[in-house]
């Protein structure tokens, strides 16, 4: 993977955690400088992602924004056929917890399997599957609440 591509994919991963472009940029800058400035030829995506994750946890633990909650049961997620604008996707993602955005990004965008995500995030495969299911349901419910309710109100 090209360095530029690696840098950008790490930025998107950081963004999935922070949902804040400035914070994601700061995390990537910190991690990149620390890991690679002296070892330009030894770049590892696994190490890069793990470091981004650790840096995020460091910062957000300090800010007490990461609160763990019990994982609910895996349940069926309904089909979602809407094509949303970037702004609408952003609003729906904003309602998700960092760990939900993280696994959805790794699964849907990076195409990692639940087992692989489990290795990256240090969780079991079934936990990862639960978070994926919960994240998707929250996203879809948020969309329905924010936009479909609005459409009904407007048209009514």
């Amino acid at each position, binding site marked *: 993977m090209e*360095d530029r591509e690696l840098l950008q994919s790490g930025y998107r991963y950081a963004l999935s955690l922070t949902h804040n472009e400035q914070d994601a940029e700061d995390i990537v800058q910190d991690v990149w400088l620390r890991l690679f400035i002296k070892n330009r030829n030894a770049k590892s995506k696994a190490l890069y992602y793990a470091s981004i994750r650790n840096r995020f946890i460091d910062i957000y633990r300090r800010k007490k924004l990461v609160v763990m909650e019990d994982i609910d049961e895996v349940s069926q997620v309904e089909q979602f056929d809407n094509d949303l604008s970037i702004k609408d996707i952003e609003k729906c993602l904003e309602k998700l917890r960092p760990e939900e955005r993280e696994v959805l990004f790794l699964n849907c965008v990076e195409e990692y399997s639940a087992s692989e995500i489990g290795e990256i995030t240090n969780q079991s495969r079934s936990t990862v599957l639960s978070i994926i299911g919960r994240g998707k349901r929250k996203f879809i419910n948020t969309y329905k609440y924010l936009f479909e309710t609005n459409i009904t109100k407007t048209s009514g």
Partner: protein
Amino acid sequence: MNNFEENLRKYYSSKNLRDDKVDLLLGGENSKRMNLPGYFKYAAAVIIIITFTFGYLQFTNNKIELSVAKEIAMNHSKQLEVEYTADNLNELENKLSKLEFKLSNIKSELNGKYNLLGGRYCSIQGNLAAQLKLKNLLTDKIETLYVSKLNDDLNKLSSSNMNMDGVNIRVWKKDGLLYGRASDI
């Protein structure tokens, strides 16, 4: 693939780290390895030559000073938290162990004038640097000091003092190191 995944892919592929930040972090190393079609390379080369020719003619006297000052002003204005808290340079030197110089050697720049609050890694023109948060004992204001080992490019820089975006920046060289101090005006 369903539309949920497509929506997420669309969202994240629309998000990119700014070009100037990418260039800063890669320090130009990637430009050697870009794999573009031939005519793109020629077009890019022509654009780069034209840009650099005009740029050189316009800013030949102070472009490095300006870009360093701009970078320092931008970093200072972000008011990032220190990564490592420390009240003395020896302690911070142990924490910022990847620097290419000894932080304890810059004591004379702080003695009696500043209290050290902490520091973090940063970069100046793609060069690894230390960013120190200081309290000015005279004014009680928080200032930021940047220190980096001089390389060929940074060595061309002359000492300067300028105001930019509401920040006063003083840049100087001493004993093989580049210093940049930023304070709010």
